[in-house]
């Protein structure tokens, strides 16, 4: 079965989903979905260790060799992301059963878990595949499942938020499809490695320029790059809290991965950065995103929405890392992808705990809440410190490499901008800490207990991961370093 690992980690959740529909009983469905997810997580971990030992793995679907058939290709770039997706999904599912009790009507729970599995399978499929059209197919699976998950939110505005995302996401997906179609017209192939070989022959054509432009804009829509981020804050604010936890930690990362894969591997560094003013565009939008979104985050009362704006800002950092067009820059982006998944996972899960007890996550109703829910708020505090980039947390590691990449390019103002962005995040995290810890309990503070252990345990697993990977960076740094080296070494 070892040779099949790369396909197994996608088809386990993919086939568990219809199986769940046959099981029907929601307790049973939850148990089965969680089991399948942990199995997937185990497979991803095995895959990562296999890639680290013996290099990239290629798997031919249906036994047809690429480019005639579809190829799965696991290398240093996507293997860690697979672990992140399935890992966060597994941890979040542990908490999901409790978290959705108060947020989703009982008769919809089974469908919720099925949509969750489909969403995860879609994200894993996009990440694992080596075929451009297959990316689109799995993008459709994950997108449809995501719209469903978001629309299940308790607030009626969740429906509107989901619809907005549906429109934006469909436009994005269509642009991606147009891009893939035009690439196919010019090369006659859909396999990524084959595209990378055949594109240079035709790279000075208007059709390939157009393909690149459409593809990148489509992906930017999906990854919510400022100013195409407008769908994100509402979607994250009104989705069920546990869904936000999962999506914030994984979905946009997958889109960033697709962007990196196509910019560096398929189109190639030369084409992307010399034929296009990509560097200038990405840098400008990245920095603008960091500042605008961070400042908007400061003024939010709904903490889920605040963290959503913070996510838009963090995407700015990821894009900034790409715009450096250097090995250190791309490594910083990859590292921050994983680290940001851990911190946002922890932060949103702590909000899920707050919502479970309070029904909402509004700052105005959280005076002195830390005395009522000490463990939850301590988790938020550590997650917040990580987001700011305090030493001993994963956030510090990300910021460290981002700043050094900026300095390596001699871009002093950009390095200053990164630090300034961190200061802004100090403000919005501090607002919460001040209200939760230093305001005395008032009459408007709900009389609540600490969150149940079924949420606290997964929450603290994520918090400890934030600390562990902040102290022992050997795994994450070495993996991302190798991936970045591959991207720059394997270039034509």
């Amino acid at each position, binding site marked *: 079965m070892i040779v099949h690992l790369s396909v197994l980690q996608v088809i386990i959740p993919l086939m568990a989903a219809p199986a769940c529909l046959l099981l029907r009983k929601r307790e049973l469905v939850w148990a089965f979905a969680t089991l399948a997810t942990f199995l997937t997580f185990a497979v991803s971990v095995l895959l990562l260790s296999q890639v680290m030992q013996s290099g990239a793995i290629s798997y031919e*679907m249906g036994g047809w060799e690429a480019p005639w058939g579809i190829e799965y290709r696991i290398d240093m770039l996507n293997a860690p992301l697979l672990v992140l997706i399935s890992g966060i999904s597994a941890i979040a599912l542990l908490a999901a059963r409790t978290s959705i009790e108060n947020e989703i009507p009982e008769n919809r729970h089974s469908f919720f878990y099925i949509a969750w599995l489909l969403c995860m399978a879609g994200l894993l499929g996009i990440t694992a595949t080596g075929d451009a059209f297959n990316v689109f197919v799995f993008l459709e699976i994950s997108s449809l499942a995501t719209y469903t998950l978001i629309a299940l939110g308790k607030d009626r505005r969740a429906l509107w938020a989901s619809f907005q995302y549906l429109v934006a996401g469909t436009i994005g997906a269509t642009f991606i499809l147009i891009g893939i179609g035009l690439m196919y017209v010019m090369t006659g192939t859909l396999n990524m490695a084959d595209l990378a070989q055949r594109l240079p022959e035709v790279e000075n054509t208007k059709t390939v320029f157009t393909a690149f432009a459409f593809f990148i804009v489509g992906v930017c829509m999906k990854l919510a790059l400022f100013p195409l981020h407008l769908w994100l804050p509402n979607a994250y604010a009104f989705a069920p809290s546990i869904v936000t936890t999962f999506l914030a930690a994984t979905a946009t990362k997958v889109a960033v991965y697709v962007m990196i894969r196509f910019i560096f591997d398929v189109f190639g560094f030369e084409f992307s950065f010399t034929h296009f003013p990509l560097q200038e565009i990405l840098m400008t939008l990245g920095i603008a995103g960091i500042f605008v979104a961070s400042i908007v985050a400061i003024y939010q009362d709904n903490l889920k929405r605040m963290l959503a704006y913070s996510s838009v800002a963090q995407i700015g950092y990821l894009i900034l890392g790409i715009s450096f067009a250097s090995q250190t820059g791309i490594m910083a982006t990859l590292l921050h992808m994983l680290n940001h998944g851990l911190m946002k996972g922890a932060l949103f899960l702590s909000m899920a705990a707050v919502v479970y007890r309070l029904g909402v996550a509004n700052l105005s109703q959280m005076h002195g809440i830390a005395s009522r829910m000490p463990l939850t708020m301590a988790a938020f505090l550590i997650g917040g410190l990580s987001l700011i980039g305090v030493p001993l947390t994963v956030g510090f590691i990300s910021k460290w490499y981002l700043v050094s990449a900026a300095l390596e390019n001699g871009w002093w103002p950009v390095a200053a901008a990164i630090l300034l962005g961190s200061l802004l995040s100090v403000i919005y995290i501090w607002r919460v800490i001040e209200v939760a810890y230093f305001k005395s309990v008032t009459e408007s503070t709900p009389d609540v207990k600490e969150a149940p252990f079924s949420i606290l345990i997964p929450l603290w697993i994520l918090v400890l991961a934030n600390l562990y990977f902040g102290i022992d960076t050997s795994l994450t740094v070495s993996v991302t370093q190798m991936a970045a080296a591959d991207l720059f070494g394997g270039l034509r």
Partner: protein
Amino acid sequence: MESFIHIIILSMLVTTAVAIVRVKDLFAVTMLAGIYGLLSASFFVLMDAHDVAFTEAAVGAGISTILILTTLSMTGRFEKAAENPKSNYKPALALALVTVTGALLIYGTQDMPAFGAADAPVQTHVVPRYLNDSATEIDIPNVVASVLASYRGYDTFGEVVVIFTAGIGVLALIMSTASKAPVALRASMEEHVVLRIVSKMLIPLIMIFGLYVQFHGEYGPGGGFQAGVIFASAFFLYAMLFGLTAARKVVNNTWIQALAALGVLLYGSVGVLAMINGGNFLDYNFLAQDDVHGQHMGILFVELGVGITVASVMIIIFFTFSTRKQRDGEPD
């Protein structure tokens, strides 16, 4: 002569598209969208893409029209004017954006190889193997079916899951929260005697045609997607003319959901069986002693899986929407 027909069909497409944008009566818009689908299908036929044309006719002109009509029966027939004039509605900006996108697309076509050119990359790189070798490797006459179900069978598996996901989405979001549907309401077209008699004769023929498309996909245009849609439309017709209560006696909620799941599982199981027999996922060569026989079996079963899931999901979507309408009482 052929380019003359192209020009006529394409200008009709543009006219229809403009009409769709301008007309405020959503019922008319739906019919126009159906016409748009039919015109596209005819255009695909002219381009010799018969499988695509068939799918477009069945899905674009057929089933999506019915589903939108069902939705309209819940939402009302006319577009409402923007309630708040100061809302985000900025038609000039949207038009500018669409124009730029269109201009860029036209710009991109300039360096494309001519349509149908023999030396175009799409004709010379991957496709020759499909055309020349599929006869020995897979041995079915319809090359499109070979590519769809075998060479790129994993994509098709993904597409079935997309359909399944759509069904799950509808069930999760608009499935009746009440346990039982209310007392029987009369079917919307129950008083049309002629329609009822004609459709009674047509329904079995539609179903047989669906099965023909299902099992004939290896020889001509067709296959699971189109067959599933055609098969489901027989149920729609019955429900519209004889009432949901009568149709519900045939279609049980639990069973139809189970079938939707089983179709996907059937497709996946074929792949897993190949793995158990020592091949890669979906490698049909490992299904039987000799390769070509294995390919035939694999394609037969995965297409069946597609057909079952597509038909079930279409029925689920239609019934969920219609039941919802009944539950909400009379439309306004």
